[in-house]
């Protein structure tokens, strides 16, 4: 009887170790890597670093510095296919949902312009000042000559504990973790 109890205990410990291993694997596993698919290309320069579609993973993200309000980002983009009647959008991936953050409407583009202005610069406003973390951004561009899909990983630097979401999530994870441990206290004993 005692041997059987020991075996059950070992199996329980093994199950807990398996669950923790799954969680560690889930966290450590590389996220889906994509870059650009289709006849498009583009680059952007932030703080002297030129980013291209290869910056698409958590270990190699596009880094936006903490002091980013008013940051000037020179960029270029081009499509090698016919670019008439185009439309596109950019979104942030949150689990199974993609939140649209910008789009460019249907444009006839009768001159078939296929590249951005060589002096194109995007000036970042203050809308990202209080946001930090790692974000997966997707974009698409459809035109008569073809369509492109792109993925990128963007890291917004900053102090995590100074934002409500960062501090709340960190504290919540710690408290909920303590509650998970408290679930291991046998019934009848005060947690």
């Amino acid at each position, binding site marked *: 009887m005692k041997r059987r109890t020991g075996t059950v205990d070992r199996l329980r410990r093994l199950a*807990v170790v398996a669950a*923790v291993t799954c969680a560690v694997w889930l966290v450590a596993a590389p996220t889906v890597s994509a870059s650009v698919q289709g006849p498009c290309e583009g680059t952007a320069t932030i703080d002297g670093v030129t980013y291209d579609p290869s910056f698409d993973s958590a270990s190699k993200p596009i880094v936006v510095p903490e002091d980013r309000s008013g940051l000037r980002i020179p960029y270029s983009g081009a499509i090698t296919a016919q670019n008439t009647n185009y439309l596109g959008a950019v979104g942030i991936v*949150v689990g199974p949902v993609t939140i649209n953050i910008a789009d460019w409407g249907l444009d006839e583009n009768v001159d078939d312009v296929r590249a951005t202005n060589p002096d194109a610069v995007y000036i970042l406003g203050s809308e990202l000042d209080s946001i930090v*973390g790692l974000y997966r951004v997707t974009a698409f561009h459809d035109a008569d000559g073809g369509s492109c899909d792109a993925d990128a990983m963007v890291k917004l630097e900053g102090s995590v504990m100074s934002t409500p979401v960062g501090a709340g*999530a960190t504290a919540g994870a710690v408290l909920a973790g303590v*509650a*998970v441990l408290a679930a291991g*206290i*046998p019934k009848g004993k005060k947690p």
Partner: protein
Amino acid sequence: MRGRPILGAISGFFFGVFLAVALQQWSVRPLDNLSVIGLPLIGIALGLLMAAWAPFGSRSGEPAGAAPPTPPAPPPSEPRTET
């Protein structure tokens, strides 16, 4: 279940949700399908396993949910002497 399965499931779910957001905020992993859906499910499983195992508050070799030991029987009373 010797522990607290309901507490384990609920707290495990929230542990997974908060952990997913915290990992995203600390730039470890973005909020993709695996972390948004997978971590809460793993949290629930972890909470239930913790409740089933119930490793805290029990002495080694003693099942945690075992009934408390019965007190020793009182010594037999001395026979009365009738007068």
